């Protein structure tokens, strides 16, 4: 169980993009090479993300979120989509990642992880042949 509880931050607009690193073990490639994300990527009760607007404020492009993670993909959901799944969206800046945020709430049951995944788009698609 997470140690902390996060309240929704209304200063984060619904169209804010929340960026999530996706390791290869959470990706399945079909016969056409199309990458699909597992719902497992969106099941953490305290789900870490990067707030794109905070990165932009610091003149960091989204891809900066995976700069030190070769082989990873980068996916995005919107804060509005997360809230529609009864999730709280909060800022949680860390010394090493000022843009860090959290999507907080139960996700394992009632298909919430899968529905969050269904609303995700690739910002950076991982390559099937790349070693992660």
């Amino acid at each position, binding site marked *: 169980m997470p140690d902390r509880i996060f309240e929704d931050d209304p200063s984060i607009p619904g169209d804010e993009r929340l960026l999530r690193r996706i390791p290869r073990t959470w990706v399945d490639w079909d016969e056409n090479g199309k990458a699909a994300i597992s*719902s*497992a990527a969106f099941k953490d009760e305290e789900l870490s993300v990067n707030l794109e607007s905070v990165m932009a404020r610091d003149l960091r492009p989204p891809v900066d979120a995976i700069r030190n993670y070769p082989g990873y993909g980068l996916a995005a959901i919107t804060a509005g989509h997360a809230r529609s799944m009864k999730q709280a969206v909060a800022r949680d800046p860390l010394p090493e990642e000022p843009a860090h945020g959290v999507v907080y709430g139960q996700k*394992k049951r009632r*298909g919430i992880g*899968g529905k969050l995944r269904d609303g995700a788009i690739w910002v950076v698609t991982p390559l099937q042949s790349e070693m992660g």
Partner: protein
Amino acid sequence: MPGLGTAELTVQERGILATSASAGYLDYFSKADRLLVSAFHQPVLMPRKRKYYSLGQAYTIEWQDYGQPLPAWFDALMQGFVDLLTLPPNWNSYGAGVVDPKIVHYAMNFINGLLGPTTPAPRVVPLSSGGLQLEWHRKGINLEVVFDRDEQPFFSHRTRVNEEESEHTLPEDSGLLRSIIANLE
């Protein structure tokens, strides 16, 4: 192996991870199947093993059976489990712990009893919490079987026709899971 036909495999609980790099489990034909075979044609159990590699580590899966062909899903599923066992701490970059070998053991034994000889292999996917889920996404069926720490196993099921997801606990609803898996073939 006269008279065995399409015998169903069941798995006996057996410690598969006696060491960090070895695994073994034992399976038998069901009692009913054995009764179909006369005493003169009683098949003989034989030890078998296969080796799987992941991130420079070798895992040997050992079991006993009657020498029948391995099911289509066997190698892919075992490789999937072994790949989970070699994930390092922080494998998701967000502080995930290693996958619990006891959960891998339980899942391996549980699902082996539900798959038919030609069942398509599921994807074996780690959870940040140290558990795992098995996934099938085919023929309009989305099926996920979740094994997690401190939680009763369950499966979720969604079809293209019925977009609503249903959840069922295990092992209580194993019969339903078996029938859904049969529809994946």
